[in-house]
């Protein structure tokens, strides 16, 4: 099943198990299969890339992972717990503590400083202010943004913004990081730098699930899924 890469840890317990997971949309009376019944296991410590042409269902799969949408059929186990049927509050709590999200367009809040941006998930986790700011600063330091705590996202380059977003995704130390084309808005060089960060996160034990267009990034992965027309298969 998995193609163990030289750096990959030995197979571990499943983090994510999808069984017959399916997402359909109804549009004008016809059923659109954004994602056809998919079975997939992602183990702790995996680096999974999701590739496929535009409109094939990559984001749909990632949003299902991130509990931003509910599947129309099938089950989704996260650390053995069925999470697709949880109520809104419980779903929010899972998003808050178990999942870190990185977006193509960064999605930083422009009226907040980058430190405040990194602190947002910790606010929702109920961390005290001092602890929150301390951890936020440590995360920014880790990604080379020390001394820029008070900067606004608009004052930073794209690469720096994406590093802030990665720091924010790590705020509550979730086991899995979901990234939807995180290098899509960056030039090649900066993209490589960001991929370096993901590689480093992977080495430090995080599970990474990344949607990407770039076949060159396949080499970072320990596991790969390609999607065509809503049909996902491991490669």
């Amino acid at each position, binding site marked *: 099943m998995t193609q163990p890469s030289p750096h990959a840890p030995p197979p571990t317990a499943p983090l994510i198990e999808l069984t017959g997971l399916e997402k359909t949309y109804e549009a004008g009376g016809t059923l659109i299969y954004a994602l056809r019944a998919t079975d997939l296991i992602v183990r702790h410590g995996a680096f999974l890339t999701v590739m496929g042409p535009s409109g094939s269902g990559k984001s749909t799969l990632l949003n299902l992972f991130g509990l931003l949408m509910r599947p129309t059929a099938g089950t989704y186990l996260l650390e053995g717990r069925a999470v697709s049927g949880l109520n809104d*509050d419980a779903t929010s709590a899972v*998003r*808050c503590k178990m999942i870190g999200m990185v977006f193509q367009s960064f*999605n930083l809040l422009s*009226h907040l400083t980058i430190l*405040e941006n990194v602190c947002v998930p910790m606010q*929702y986790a109920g961390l005290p202010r001092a602890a929150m700011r301390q951890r936020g600063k440590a995360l920014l330091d880790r990604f080379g943004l020390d001394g820029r705590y008070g900067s606004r996202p608009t004052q930073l380059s794209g690469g720096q913004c994406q590093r802030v977003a990665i720091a924010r995704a790590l705020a509550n130390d979730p086991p899995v990081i979901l990234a939807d084309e995180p290098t899509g808005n960056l030039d090649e060089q900066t993209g490589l730098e960001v991929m370096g960060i993901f590689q480093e996160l992977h080495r430090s034990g995080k599970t990474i699930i990344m949607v990407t267009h770039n076949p060159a990034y396949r080499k970072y992965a320990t596991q790969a899924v390609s999607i065509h027309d809503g049909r996902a298969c491991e490669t």
Partner: protein
Amino acid sequence: MNLLEMSVTVYASLTRHLVRSLLATLGIVLGIAAVVAMLAIGEGGRQEALRQIESQGIDNIILRSVKPAEGNAQQTTRSYTQRYGITQRDVEHIESVFENVRLIVPVMEVRREIYLGQTSTDIKAVATTPAFLEVSRCRLVDSRSRFLVPTDGKILDPVCVVGTKAARRLFGHRDPLGQAVVIGNVSFRVVGLVENPGGGRIGGQFELNNLVCMPLETATSLWGGITIQMRRGMAEKVDYDFLYLAAKNIDAIPGTAGRLRTYLRGAHAQVDYEVQVPYELLQSARRTQRIFTVVMTSIAAISLLVGGIGIMNIMLANIFERTREIGVRRALGARKRDILWQFLAESVLLTSIGGGLGAGLGIATAAAAEMISRLGGEAGLKAVVTSESLIVALAVSVITGISFGTHPAWKAAQLDPLTALRHE
């Protein structure tokens, strides 16, 4: 999210569109300003009315003789003496029948001018009894002063007591005690200086602080039992110009006043008297106050409604513009209620800022109204800002924020996270 974090978040969002946010609160500012200013002016008016009523003595009923319209009497003979007003018979009747009246204090106008050098003054001379001090709500200005005492009348002593305003007029900075006041060719020695703190008037006529009081018996012995005024060959006869009736029981005053009016209607052929009841004035002042409050509340409610709709609009616009932010926050773990509280707190903060500015504007408006009304004369509006009114203003602005912020905040919370995230 704790309160501190929430206020930081809310502050950051509001300062982003500071000018727009402040403009949005304009309706609230004006509404609250109206509330505060009107409460202040209402309270000032209430205190002023109370002060005036109390300066007349809330336990008094005051009868005043009123000259009826001329010509209705048989005014044919040349030397006709017109009799009118409260009579000795009335006094005797009241004394014997009205149980609630514990004290009757007569006041006669001594119809003679008081001169300062060669010019006549507006200072009035009255003749009365020692109990006048109590019923008129005057007080002695210093320990050397005394009011009229029964002996003054018995020995027909030409002594008098002057009001503070009259004393200043007559004697300037000199000590009035021991000075002489000449009234109708008779010199009266000043034995006391009195003041009515409320600046009240006898039966609404003569300013108490601008009076010279002499013993009733002295005046009677000098000028006869009835004060007579000659005018165009006519004389007038009045037994009593004013009669203070002090009540034993204040709560029974409306009944007493009613029976008194009934009696006077029967006893007098024409309405040559007036019954003044400060207690009733107080009641009617309270009624006026209630009407004022209702009107004020309606105006404030309308401005606050308009202001609240303004807030709701700006919040809906805010939320539309910040749909993506809401999506991001939800994706990062915010629950519906976190979003709800955030936007509710924003609208409450907006209306509270509006309320604060409005309270300031209201205080300024009230003060300005007071100043402008005093430009003309001495007596004008009075504005009193109470801490209660400020608490009311703050509470009202918070309640407005909650009432008109709930719908937008609820809408924000209901947004689908993914749809919100994809917005723009």
